[in-house]
């Protein structure tokens, strides 16, 4: 019955959590999917927690929230504590390693930790850590193609940020590679 994929992306304000969801949404729109992107954040200007729920579906979406997620992309400990139990059995939990003190322990879901911030630093821009994570996510759940994510980035980035396109593209690819290396190791 369900052709929808529901993702929670959660972390602190400023980590690019909402943008990651937006870019994923645009890419899915390019592919002709139905989208719902629902932001949730605190009243603080900076810091505070932020998350967004993205649903990508082949059919029209009714409720923008459901009680369980197919995937979670987590960028801080409070979000991990809050959402780890809400991933469906068999689902995916992807997290940014440096921000997590107590890693998730569930055995009925796929858990992948990525050093996205460190990788972003290597690419000389810590701001692209979210794209490293998105690349990693899409490697395991190819709900949209990387090409369309890049297309979406072109549309989403304002004119004065277009020069950041190549580094974002690199970050996406690096995320994909990281996951492939990880999976390769475990096999």
């Amino acid at each position: 019955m369900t052709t929808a994929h529901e993702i929670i992306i959660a972390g602190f304000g400023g980590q690019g959590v909402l943008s990651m969801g937006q870019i994923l949404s645009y890419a899915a729109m390019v592919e002709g999917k139905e989208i719902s992107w629902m932001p949730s954040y605190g009243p603080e200007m900076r810091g505070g927690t932020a998350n967004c729920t993205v649903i990508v579906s082949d059919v029209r979406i009714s409720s923008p929230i459901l009680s369980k997620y197919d995937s979670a992309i987590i960028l801080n400990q409070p979000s991990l504590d809050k959402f780890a139990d809400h991933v469906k059995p068999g689902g995916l939990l992807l997290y940014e390693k440096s921000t997590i003190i107590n890693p998730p322990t569930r055995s009925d879901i796929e858990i992948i930790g990525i050093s996205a911030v460190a990788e972003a630093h290597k690419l000389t821009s810590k701001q692209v850590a979210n794209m490293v994570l998105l690349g990693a996510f899409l490697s395991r759940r190819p709900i949209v193609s990387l090409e369309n994510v890049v297309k979406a980035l072109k549309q989403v980035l304002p004119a004065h940020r277009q020069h950041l396109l190549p580094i974002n593209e690199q970050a996406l690819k690096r995320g994909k590679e990281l996951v492939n290396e990880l999976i390769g190791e475990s096999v």
Partner: protein
Amino acid sequence: MSFSSSVVQLRSGNQMMAEGAIQAGCKFFAGYPITPATGIFKTMIDLLPANAGVALSAPDEISAIAYCIGASMRGFKTMTATSGPGWSLMIESVQYALMTETPLVVALVQRLGPSTGGATQGGQGDVLLAEFCTSGGYTLPVLCPTNAKECFELTILAFTWSEILRMPVILLSDKETGMTVESIDYSTLSNATSQNRPSNFAFRDYGEFQKEQRKGTYYIDALQEIPTFAPVGGDRKVTATGSAHDKQGKLQKNSPETIDMLIHLEEKLRWRHDDFSLVNMDLQESAKTLVISYGITSRAAKDAVGAARNVGHAVSSLVIQSLFPIPVKKLAQALDGIERVVVVEENMHGLYRSVLERYCNGQRVQGVNKIGAMITPKEILNAILG
């Protein structure tokens, strides 16, 4: 942020309300930014000047709505947008618009109350504050969209009603409806604009003009009629006061004509009540349970109703878009054969349920209520099956 090559775009409910307003012919917007209504304000500031309109950032909400009333009195279609705390400030002036028969659309994007409450949290706690904000207890039309597309469509409708009736209309949205971004297929949107207020003054000669002039600003032959609009600053003298007045617009105490004019304010809407009923009915003949919902919660309700039917449980659904005036005929139709009514809303005690209960004859009425978080399909399903 647009894909000009595609007719499908990602849009928030707030953006769609602004775009709906522009398509409806709105030429003046004044607002004061407030989460979660700021998206409407920002989109109007971005788009309205390019559409031959004026968008103003007002110093506060009281000024914002007052600017709008002034512009509407001059003949322009106007809109403002706010959330709970700002609405509290606008309540005095929205009554002035009602009393002076000035068309106006107010988008009220609800957030968690009371007071400044939760600026970034949703809620459906302003339903009765929107409706029962007038001293005297007058009915204000309240329209409630459930998604971004309906934000567009109902905004155009809100302009039509406000123009036809010459009265303020409230568009009751909420944080999740306003700020959730969805895919919108522009090819499925209507090209219709809104209707205009009755204003036909093509005088053949000065004598006719004088005759019309003597009739007064609010001249009507029957209580349900809508007085013909003349703009302030036009050929004709216009009198406007928030105090009780006669057909000339002159302040009067308790003259029969003045009382008639007060009754007229309610009667003009009551007369057209059925035309304005707007619901989505999804009835099952054998159903004994009816789920009533509105706004964002109706989307979870839709999922829940589908899930209940999947397990063989017959259930009917009524999504109400025109919350006020209450669509009594359609409600009665949906209640036919029903034994139990479940009203789903994101507030503490069931605000809308409290006004619906009097229309339920013998049915058991229960609520699914919650504050601080959205109601999930599962919670509604439990109530349906329980």
